[in-house]
């Protein structure tokens, strides 16, 4: 039995499609940034696309997500159209945050996705509370809370995981260990052998996974989710991966050893998946190339459409500070 390739062609192509969408959107965003056509920052998930893709693929409608900096595939996996992502980065009035927030700080709650706030760790208790509430209301939600290696050093990470453990809340705390927090490597962030060693201290299950293997993740997380949906409790899932660009596009990331990047480049999750699918006979190279071309066309169109979307009207500045009702 090979769990990795024990997947239908349709499902496998859907995974690849989400990863390709993210990659092609981010490539466009990078160009826009360097052309000075995006204000504020651009932060990319290059190399980490598998994680959001696999975790959303195994999720159900009621599930809740708190994506972090590099999780465009969470949004795409939950159905956010590329056009809305461009609207967000371009600060359009009809984007997910209506120009009130920018770049990676978005989320659509009708898709079960909370909008990220910058304070690392701060969303972890939010998704925990959200899952508690949904379950109380009779919806068997599972939560997915994403955090970087650096984010695990925040007090909020600790409080949230412990809180979820005490209340048996089924949240998968997905640590994306991409080896760096801005310029800071793991060695200056923590001393444990692996961040999965934190699990025992919360009395929860800890799982380590290859964060660049979308099919493997799909199988691992699928099984985990099924388990905790039935027998609610949190899990710490540590995905080993690599940030393949600078922290943001303003940062050339030159502090990252070149060899490290070269090694990981061979483990690019898009490449890995492509090779797996071809090797397992699930898809041909030509089919995958066609998929990529279709994705690229979709992304181009979404971008063009978003360009025509309206900018916020300054007169609306104060609208929505308070909810009314």
């Amino acid at each position, binding site marked *: 039995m090979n769990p990795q390739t024990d997947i239908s062609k349709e499902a496998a192509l859907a995974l690849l499609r989400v990863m390709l969408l993210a990659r092609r959107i981010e490539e466009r965003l990078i160009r826009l940034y360097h052309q000075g056509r995006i204000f504020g920052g651009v932060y990319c998930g290059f190399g980490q696309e598998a994680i959001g893709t696999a975790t959303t693929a195994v999720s159900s409608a009621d599930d809740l997500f708190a994506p972090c900096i590099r999780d465009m595939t969470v949004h795409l996996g939950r159905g956010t159209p590329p056009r809305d992502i461009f609207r967000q980065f371009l600060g359009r009035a009809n984007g997910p945050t209506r120009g009130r927030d920018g770049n990676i700080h978005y989320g659509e*709650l009708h898709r079960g996705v909370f909008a990220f706030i910058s304070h690392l760790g701060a969303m972890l*208790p*939010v*998704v*925990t*509370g959200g899952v508690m509430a949904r379950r109380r209301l009779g919806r068997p939600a599972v939560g997915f809370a994403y955090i970087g290696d650096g984010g695990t050093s925040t007090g*909020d990470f600790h409080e949230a995981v412990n*809180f979820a453990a*005490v209340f048996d809340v089924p949240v998968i705390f997905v640590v994306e260990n991409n080896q760096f927090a801005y310029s800071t490597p793991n060695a200056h962030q923590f001393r444990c052998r692996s961040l999965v060693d934190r699990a025992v201290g919360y009395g929860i299950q800890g799982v380590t996974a290859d964060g660049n293997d979308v099919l493997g993740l799909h199988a691992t997380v699928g099984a985990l989710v099924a388990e905790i949906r039935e027998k609610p409790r949190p899990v710490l899932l540590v995905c080993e991966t690599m940030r393949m660009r600078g922290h943001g596009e303003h940062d050339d990331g030159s502090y990252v050893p070149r060899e490290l990047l070269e090694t990981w480049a061979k483990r690019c999750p898009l490449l890995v998946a492509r090779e797996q699918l071809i090797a397992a006979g699930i898809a041909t190279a030509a089919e995958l190339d066609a998929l990529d071309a279709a994705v690229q066309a979709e992304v181009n169109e979404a971008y063009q459409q978003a360009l025509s979307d309206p900018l916020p009207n300054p007169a609306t500045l104060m609208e*929505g500070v308070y909810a009314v009702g």
Partner: protein
Amino acid sequence: MPSAETTFLEAIRQALQRLLRERSDVVMFGQDIGAFGGAFKVTAGLQKEFGADRVFDTPISESAILGAALGMATMGLRPVVEMQFSDFATTALHQLLNNAGTLHYRTGVAAPLVVRAPCGGGFAGGPFHSEELEAFFCHMPGLKVVYPAFPADARALLLAAALDPNPVVFLENKYLYRHVKEWLPAVWSPTTLGTARVCRPGSDAVVLTYGAMVHEALRAAELVHAEDGGEVMVLDLRSLKPLDTDSILAAVAATNRVLIVHEGWHTGGFGAEIAALVAERAFHLLDAPIWRLTAPDCPVPFAQELEKAYRPNAEKIRDALLELLEH
């Protein structure tokens, strides 16, 4: 059937009880609020009556409490959480300022949650169990801040706070818990947030205040009246954000002399906001400078002798009023 007088604390408990009874979407959690009934016993009996899945204890994790409340609020519940002392909310202000306070603006999602925060001094609590933090909360966009002074108001405003679609910080002055009582009607409804109340009419000066200081101001107004016949109005703001600017401006128009009193620190205290508002909007109505009588800029001291010097009270307010009336 006229009931006995009800304490401020019991009034809050009544509001919580009613919320739990009438609204299945209300849940309450915090440190030791379950079987134990909370550090001040405000939630006494509620877990027993409504079950541990509606009223429950948490670990000592303020950020998790506030963050989880926010998550729940977005999912159709109305959490009412307790900070054991408001002082400890300072470990997690980012959850209020950045997360809860901005959510609706950023995403259009409402977050109906209430943070109950016992506050204030006067009982030798020292620097970490006596803080008055309303100035912080009021500076945060997207939050509402309520600060009652009387049992009836506390009960009716807490109901309103919990029914509001926004995050509301509900400040409970600990000194009032057992010191203040009044007769409460059996039938009651929420009080609109953002409405001040004239507790005492007057035409010579107005004290703009809230919380425990309302009672000190009322006593001071009596003293002034007894001493020189002056008629001092006392306006209880009740809600600091939204602030009832109309009532404030009307009070200034009626008296032309303003003393602002609060128990929090002077520099950047909420009294500064009130003074600035009056100086901007009612400048032409003033016969005298706008004075503030507040705690000084020092940590809340423990020893009684020091705390007495630290905290405003009726005598200090009287002295200030007598001087202001001469101005």
